[in-house]
């Protein structure tokens, strides 16, 4: 069946994390995403671990591969005088142009919004720099990890008595920014189908993440309170946390949210004597004495296998989940297996490796990845023949002139 974005073409200058993960979503659902790369300006994610068998190589990074499924890659040297006209030919046949450079880079290529609009008046132009196209810090640079810091997520995550923990990842790159960017592009494409109008989309990569922290902002602007981190605590429920289980670095998350959960937890744990104390049967006193309760509870959970405890608690309706590591989610999770989340694709240099499918399923549209990540420049000839109408000899001469590096 036809994928939702069949017929949509994206000239894609995005690189590294958030931009590439945004256009991956669109590529996986049928858009023809042409990744504009260059050996003179390698997408630094191609040089980021992990690599197949631990051996570095521009076509061996798993970090890069997972973010670039279903795309085609061409290499062009944007500094070569013949390149701009070629890229404009691709843009003339594209619906979207995407980049996540700091402001000014696309303009230096000769591909700012106005220049692109001159070629393709109804283009949807997605720009997603770290701080947006305007403002005193527009030229500042950073990664997802910098945004975790800038947006307040890091300050709010971890324990109050220790340094702010953050997510341990470049979190905004993986969900907030790709999703907001993809949603904005899909909305802009709808507007274009209805009116014929393209437009310019400016995403500051800090801004979607702050948009997720509305309640923390309002706590300050309305109630005058600057929140700080509070571990795994809940504002009203206890126990609500992560507890040690048997084995090396094994943990379970348990959330007792209502008055049915507590007696169910007691029964599963075999009604230990301490749990019978009246103060633990009241939500308010459980929450008041939550630190003490956490310590007592962990003495019980530490005797359990995490999976067995989760199943026993879930059988009685108590929210509980193993703190799964990468091996667990890949090999041991029957639910992700049932949903077919992990897709194996054969890559010419990496062999068969694992990719993420998208995290949703449609009743009719298939969830599929049309191809593994492209090799650097794998589709240069194909794309230039198909979209720029070049003959093999013309391509050869461009290669010899150094335009297609």
């Amino acid at each position, binding site marked *: 069946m036809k994928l939702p974005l069949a017929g949509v073409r994206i000239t894609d200058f995005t690189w590294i994390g958030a931009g590439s993960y945004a256009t991956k979503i669109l590529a996986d659902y049928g858009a023809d995403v042409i990744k504009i790369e260059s050996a003179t300006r390698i997408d630094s994610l*191609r040089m980021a671990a992990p690599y197949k068998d631990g051996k570095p190589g521009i076509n061996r990074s798993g970090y890069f591969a997972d973010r670039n499924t279903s795309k085609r890659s061409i290499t062009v040297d944007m500094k070569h005088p013949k390149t701009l006209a070629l890229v404009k030919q691709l843009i003339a046949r594209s619906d979207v142009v995407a980049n996540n450079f700091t402001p000014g880079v696309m303009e230096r290529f000769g591909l700012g919004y106005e220049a692109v609009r001159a070629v393709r008046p109804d283009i949807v132009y997605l720009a997603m720099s770290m701080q947006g196209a305007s403002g005193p810090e527009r030229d500042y640079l950073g990664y997802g990890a910098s945004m975790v810091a800038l947006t307040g997520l890091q300050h709010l995550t971890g324990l109050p008595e220790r340094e702010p923990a*953050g997510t341990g990842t470049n979190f905004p790159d993986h969900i*907030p920014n790709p999703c907001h960017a993809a*949603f904005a592009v899909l909305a802009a494409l709808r507007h274009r189908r209805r009116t014929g109008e393209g*437009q310019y989309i400016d995403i500051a990569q800090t801004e*979607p993440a702050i948009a997720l922290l*509305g309640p923390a902002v309002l706590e300050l602007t309305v109630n005058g309170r600057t*929140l700080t981190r509070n571990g795994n605590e809940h504002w009203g429920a206890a126990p609500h946390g992560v507890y040690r289980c048997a084995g090396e670095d094994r943990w379970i998350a348990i959330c007792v949210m209502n008055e049915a959960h507590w007696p169910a937890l007691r029964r599963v744990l075999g009604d230990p004597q301490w749990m019978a104390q009246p103060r633990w049967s009241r939500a308010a006193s459980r929450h008041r004495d939550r630190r003490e309760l956490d310590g007592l509870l962990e003495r019980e959970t530490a005797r359990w296998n995490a999976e067995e405890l989760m199943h026993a608690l879930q059988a009685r309706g108590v929210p509980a989940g193993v703190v799964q590591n*990468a091996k667990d989610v890949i090999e041991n999770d029957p639910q992700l297996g049932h949903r077919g989340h992990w897709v194996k694709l054969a890559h010419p240099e990496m062999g068969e490796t694992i990719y993420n499918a*998208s995290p949703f399923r449609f009743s009719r549209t298939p969830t599929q990845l049309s191809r593994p990540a492209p090799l650097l420049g794998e589709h240069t000839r194909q794309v230039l023949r198909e979209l720029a109408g070049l003959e093999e000899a013309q391509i050869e001469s461009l290669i010899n002139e150094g335009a297609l590096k």
Partner: protein
Amino acid sequence: MASDAAHSQPAALAGLRVLDLSGPLGQYCGKMFADMGADVILIEPPQGAATRREPPFIDDEPGVERSLSFAYFNTSKRGVTLDLDCAQGQALFRRLAATADLVLETEKPGVMARRGLTHAELTALRPMLVMTSITPFGQTGPYANYEAEDLIALAMGGLLYLGGYPDIAPSRVYGNQACLGASMFGAVASMLALTEAEASGEGQHVDVSMQECVVMALETAVQYYDLEGTIRKRYAGQQRFAGTGVFPCKDGYVYMMAGGIGANKFWALSVQWLLDEKLPGVERLHGEQWTRVDYLLTGEAKRIFAEVFAPFALTRTKAELYHEGQRRRIPLAPINTPADMLASPQLRHRGYFIEVAHALRGRPLLMPGAPYRLSRTPWRVGRPAPQLGEHNAEVLGEIGVVRDELESLRSRGVI
């Protein structure tokens, strides 16, 4: 509120009608549609949605019209009350669904079927209708009926394992990010299905799993296991690589990234900065070993970097380190508190925080504004979050429910 000029501009999702039955897993999805101009109708049970009981509250006092979380995540929506567990409420819902493009729901699997409101039943009335169901683990499978709060989904999705301090239990990312991730992917999936429905004339059912959405945030953990056979762990409180991590400064903390990601020039720029500052021991950061990731991962490298950089950082403020680092093209960032963000000259310049009226409070609420700026179809808050049942007469009137009927529906507790 957005300016008058913005109000005269078109909205990207004008003409789309969304019925939003969602709780915590879907409310931001509904907001994304509503702030882009879709007509999003929040459908709550007559006693009010559970999301109205979520803090913070205005002046810390609970109340159905006092939740700031609700006020934030339900902007631009209209609101009706409808008891979907009674036949009359279900009949009214079917009439609304016959006018809608998207139904968004987050009930446990099977609840909509018991109500006779499955996608199959609703598309009989409206073939192009898309229905998006967001649940903790998805509609089917061995864990489909498992209970999950945000923390459980972070655990089961593998992100929790990557966060926090190595010597103690993992720490969750703040702010219901699993619920929000499910909402964001739910919004993308819904737009994909709506796009497809426009072309094919047929809607479809979308099944979003919160756990699976969290898995998308594992960065390289899955690839490390798949390609190298190693399990990525949490490392808060330590540098990730030498030169990359949290350092205390005069008025808080900064996140220093002398290492960057992949190939880059930040290390040389960082060492030059420390040289220019004439820091004692800076020569210890010279040498070929500093170009190797395996060396940067050693305790020795991290200790040496900290011995040189940490005393210097303590003599500077977050802002001083941020601007000087950035002037030198080093991706250093301050670890901002919410107060720092409100004071940020950058966010202020962009007019990021906006005022939205609140009926009960009198004064407007200052909250985050546009997460994206679309030149032709600007994001905007069209109206404050609805009061309980605020649009009952208006919305039900649009499907032909007359005033007398409304009174009888109200007295029987249907609305």
